């Protein structure tokens, strides 16, 4: 164990590990970072203990969230899953077609421009999408589908699909590009057309990278607060399979109620429990996504 730990540190010039003062300062900075990251998880865990103790497993399975009486997170969990699932289903064919076209058919100069625009758009603040959603998407969906209220789970899913499109597209394009040129040449040598090459050679080869891109996109969609909060309708109920009704997601619930519960009581603990659930799901998705992406770029 001691040897394993020692291998973790770089040796100085003379082969020793004589740290200067600055080294210790850097180590302290690193410790602060470590505390921030680990502390975030620990705080969520510790603070959600009271609600889990009072509700038990019913916290995740209960259907009713009545402040002061009972806290059940099922409506929010279902809402988050539905909204994220819709976003992925909507974004997948579009992003993959776009990525395929960009990587296999566009000229390099064009490709760089498309990538640049995508990366710029990936940084557009959520509140801007929220504003667009409130002004156009809710009204449009209400009119087209003849609903009473345009603030539905479906609206939130569409908005999230638009939001994660640049991320998923640019990451899957990276995965497609990372297939070595020899594979293309071998396929051409066998007389395969461009499409056959893409379908039979490039896609299977870059599947882990694409899976990673999707997982990271899902992670982002699941955590988005503001844009979803503005269009989802904020109604706590288990939606079943009708997506054209108002609902609630975990982040939108947190955004709506954090200001009321501020800092104490079982209500706050219940919100922290929701936060913990979200944190664990997103952390796992991100971890797996990064593993897939790293494997594809090797």
């Amino acid at each position, binding site marked *: 164990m001691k040897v394993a730990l020692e291998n*973790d540190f*770089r040796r100085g*010039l003379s082969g020793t590990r004589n*740290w*200067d003062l600055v*080294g210790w300062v*850097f*180590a*302290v*900075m*690193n410790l*602060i*970072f470590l505390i*921030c*990251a680990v502390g*975030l998880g620990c*705080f*969520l865990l510790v603070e959600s203990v009271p609600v889990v103790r009072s509700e038990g497993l019913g916290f995740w399975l209960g259907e009713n969230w009545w402040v002061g009486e009972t806290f059940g997170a099922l409506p929010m969990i279902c809402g988050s899953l539905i909204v994220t699932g819709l976003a992925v289903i909507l974004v997948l064919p*579009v992003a993959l*077609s*776009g990525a395929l*076209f960009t990587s296999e*058919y566009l000229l390099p100069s064009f490709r760089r421009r*498309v990538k*640049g*625009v995508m990366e*710029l*758009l990936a*940084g*557009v*603040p*959520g*509140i*801007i999408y929220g*504003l*667009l959603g*409130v*002004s156009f998407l*809710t009204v449009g969906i209400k009119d087209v589908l003849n609903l009473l209220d345009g603030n539905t789970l479906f609206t939130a899913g569409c908005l999230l699909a638009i939001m994660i*499109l640049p991320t998923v597209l640019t990451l899957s394009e990276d995965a497609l590009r990372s297939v070595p040129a020899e594979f293309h040449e071998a396929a051409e040598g066998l007389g395969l*057309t461009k*499409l056959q090459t893409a379908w039979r050679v490039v896609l299977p080869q870059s599947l882990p990278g694409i899976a990673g891109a999707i997982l990271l996109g899902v992670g982002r969609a699941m*955590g988005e*607060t*503001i844009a979803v909060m*503005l269009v989802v309708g904020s109604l706590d109920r288990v939606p079943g399979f009708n997506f054209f009704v108002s609902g609630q997601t975990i*982040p939108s619930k*947190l*955004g709506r109620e*954090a*200001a009321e519960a*501020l*800092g104490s009581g079982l209500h706050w603990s219940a919100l*922290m429990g929701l*936060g913990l659930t*979200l*944190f664990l799901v*997103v952390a796992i*998705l991100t*971890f797996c996504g990064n593993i897939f992406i790293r494997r594809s770029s090797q």
Partner: protein
Amino acid sequence: MNAIAVEKVVLAFIGAVTFFIVVLLVFILGIMFVKGLPAFHAGFLFEESRDFGHSGGIFYQAVGTLILMATAVLWSLPVALGSVLFQTEYLSRSGKFKNFLTQLTYILNATPTILFGLVGYLFFGVYLDKGVSWVTGSLILAVMILPTLQVSFREAVEALPEKYREAGMALGFSRLSQIRRIILPQCFYGMVTGVLLGLARAAGETAAIMFTATTFSGIQWPQSFSDPVPTLQTHILVLAQEAANPESIAQAWGAGLVLLGLVFILTLTAWAFRTRMVMESEQ
């Protein structure tokens, strides 16, 4: 249908989809300008908002966003720089501990921002008793942008050609002068990139600060660190919730255009510096 016909159909289809994506994105940007520009009357940027944001300008909100993001980077910069230099200079290249720290950076980067708001408020606002204030908000944002800075810094340091380090070693530099004379100057542009990207991320963030740093109306200027700050993001949020009111939504578009402009300018400047960094390291 033969293979060539299929090829043509599929190509036409994915080409059309790509075209649709481009149109969609151009539409989004276009809409921002079409809707946002009418809100710009003389002094939109330099007047205070009146009438609960329904008229007047966005001066205090814009300044609030700027000072909040600037203080966040101020807190975050030393921690990011120190931890990255520790990881690259003091830890061995492929140790388990370094791997663990890298994974932690990625997970922190992907954590939903509202969670920074929740936990940060509990820690800074309640335990350290800072309440809803500038300092709480900026510390929360500082933790949130930490991975952004770290990733850029690490890219810059690791892109440094090994011969630079070897030259330093040959001159008998200590680790400290290695860092001060070689790594910091050579990685300067990469660090600027990181700082600008961090600023852009902090400027665009709403969820983490909406109940930790801001109150909507009635305040102008934080008199001290423990006062709340008005920001563009929360201004838009409040106005967008009254979407039925044409006056308020018009103001929201104007503020949105300013915010989007700010984020784009920061990002594009960051890229300009990044290109410069790449050019230097290839020399």
